[in-house]
């Protein structure tokens, strides 16, 4: 009913490999994009910039990690370190007087170079051991950041980000920041949607499923692993830089610590490995729900006249965040993307599927 398949016949490979196979999907995407464009006129800027904007940028970042973990199947627990490389390189480049457009690309490239180092670990080990190696590399990067004053200004210091300017326009308004984030997120999403349809995407999936079997088919798994890490690190780098430029305004090593790496991985896995729409859901859940629950607890305790300890309130979001990961994995190990897929498949034939039974 909602997703009508009737009348959709793919009679050629070209039409069958279109980005949206079902017109309803395309219509929905266009509709959501229009809402996204109109959001600054609808939503108060408080919501826009403290919830929607970080959601968009983290989604872009999570999609980058999904590329390497979901598509290429390589566990990565050092993603935040790669984002940090992008953020710091971009800011330092801008401080040297280079325009932001170029600085963002330089940030992305620098992240790519460092991120490819992680790939060399992936050439040697996989699974749990890769996760541990990347985790250790994250610690090394953390250490380098906090211990080199030239990069971060030393430990407990933060670096002021210069005002964002793109295409000769200084961006200072809330709506401006929002559109930058939206633009980047849409760009990454389109890239990922297209990746599915290319030989590169298929090669990555082949490497994920069985790297030596892929090698027998002539897929050079070394090359594709490095490519996956480089591409995902580029996305990470730019996302990191934009996060600082439009949201934090200051860069500090704690923003890219190991906990953040775990958080991005949680977003990807809770969203569903290899699922694009899932990453949107995963980020929303991990980023926003703990805060919402905390808000609810505060309101509830005020309503009921109960005194809740300040410390308790401070730690509830963390407990909720951990519980969310566990619960979603228990309900559906393939994540929210899979749950969405199930609902979509159900609606695809609704209500006629029910008539048959």
């Amino acid at each position, binding site marked *: 009913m909602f997703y009508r398949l009737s009348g959709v016949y793919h009679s050629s490979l070209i039409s069958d490999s279109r980005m949206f196979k079902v017109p309803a999907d395309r219509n929905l995407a266009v509709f959501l994009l229009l809402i996204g464009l109109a959001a600054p006129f609808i939503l108060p800027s408080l919501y826009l910039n403290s919830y929607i904007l970080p959601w968009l940028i983290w989604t872009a970042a999570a999609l980058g990690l999904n590329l390497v973990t979901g598509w290429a199947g390589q566990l990565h627990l050092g993603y935040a370190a790669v984002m940090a490389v992008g953020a710091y390189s971009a800011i330092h480049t801008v401080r040297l007087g280079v325009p932001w457009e170029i600085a963002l690309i330089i940030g992305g490239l620098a992240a790519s170079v460092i991120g490819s180092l992680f790939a060399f670990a992936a050439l040697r*080990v996989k699974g749990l051991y890769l*996760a541990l*190696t990347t*985790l*250790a590399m994250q610690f090394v990067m953390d250490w380098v950041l906090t211990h080199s004053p030239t990069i971060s200004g030393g430990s407990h210091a933060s670096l002021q980000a210069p005002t964002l300017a793109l295409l000769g326009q200084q961006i200072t308004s809330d709506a401006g920041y929002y559109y930058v984030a939206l633009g980047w997120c849409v760009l990454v999403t389109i890239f990922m949607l297209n990746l599915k349809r290319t030989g590169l995407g298929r090669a990555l999936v082949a490497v994920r499923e069985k790297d030596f079997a892929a090698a027998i088919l002539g897929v050079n798994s070394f090359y594709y692993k490095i490519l996956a890490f480089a591409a995902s690190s580029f996305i990470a780098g730019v996302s990191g830089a934009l996060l600082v430029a439009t949201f934090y305004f200051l860069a500090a090593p704690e923003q890219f610590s190991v906990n953040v790496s775990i958080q991005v991985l949680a977003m990807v896995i809770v969203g569903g490995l290899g699922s694009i729409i899932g990453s949107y859901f995963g980020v929303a859940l991990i980023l926003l729900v703990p805060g919402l629950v905390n808000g609810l607890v505060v309101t509830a305790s005020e309503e009921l006249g109960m005194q809740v300890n300040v410390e308790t309130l401070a730690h*509830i979001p963390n*407990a909720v965040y951990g519980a969310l990961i566990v619960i979603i994995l228990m309900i559906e190990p393939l994540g929210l993307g899979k749950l969405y897929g199930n609902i979509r498949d159900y609606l695809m034939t609704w209500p006629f599927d029910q008539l048959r039974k």
Partner: protein
Amino acid sequence: MDWVFLSELAINGALTGLLYSLFAIGLVLVYKASSVPNLAQGGLTMVGAYVVLALARDLGMPLWLAIPLAAVVMFGLGFGIERVALRRLAGRPVVMILMLTLGLDIFLRGTTLAISGGTSRSMELGVSYEPLLLGDIFISRIHLVGAGVALALFVAFIVFFRTRTGIKLRAIADDYMASWSVGISVERGVGLSWALASVVAVAAGVIWGEIQGVDQALSLLLLKGLTVAVLGGLDSILGAIVAGIILGVIENVGAEFLDPLVGGGSRELIVAAVLILTVMIRPHGLFGRHDIERV
């Protein structure tokens, strides 16, 4: 370089290392019995210490009663973790189980702190702070106690894995399906391994709580514990002990030389470097099992 000073560094390093082993045994137990990484051991250690404190301070029990009782509580918690969460993911890819244990870790930490608050509390085991003098070398008494506990657990678990139950646990780690086929209760086995790891967490929590205070920082032992576990071979208890000593010595001696060069704080760097090098050079560690590939 002064030899006495160097050996003092080495001996104290080895003792601290055995305390890392104490933590790492929890990781090894779970891996050895289910081939699953237990990244929640940091959270469990923290919970273990808080449960002891809750029993001793809030309910006024003496420590000799509070610690065993906490071990019983944690034993139950370990079984509960398997029953509620891990059972549903048995046989799923390692990514998901890894994430699940990370989620558990975050949840356990968050919940504990939400209940007990974040201020650091002290364990007060009653072990004297007066260092022990061995020749010219100063040795901390609590470290010695902790090392003794680690070695005792080591012996206990070596014996345990030779019993019929222990052999069944190792069989589960080898092949879930084959274990089911001969009537081994995989669920109960995995639950038992988590329960034992939780008991080990009480020991680690008490000792480390005495050394550095009971607070959030207890869960930060995870990186060191992981490094020890991987260096020793993820499924080798002997490995955990030997690797603990090695890591402790490398860290203590190395930091002495490196700290002046890099301006302090080189311990984490050394640990991370050992972890990376181990995985790159010898992923199965010093005593870990090789995966047998037959064609």
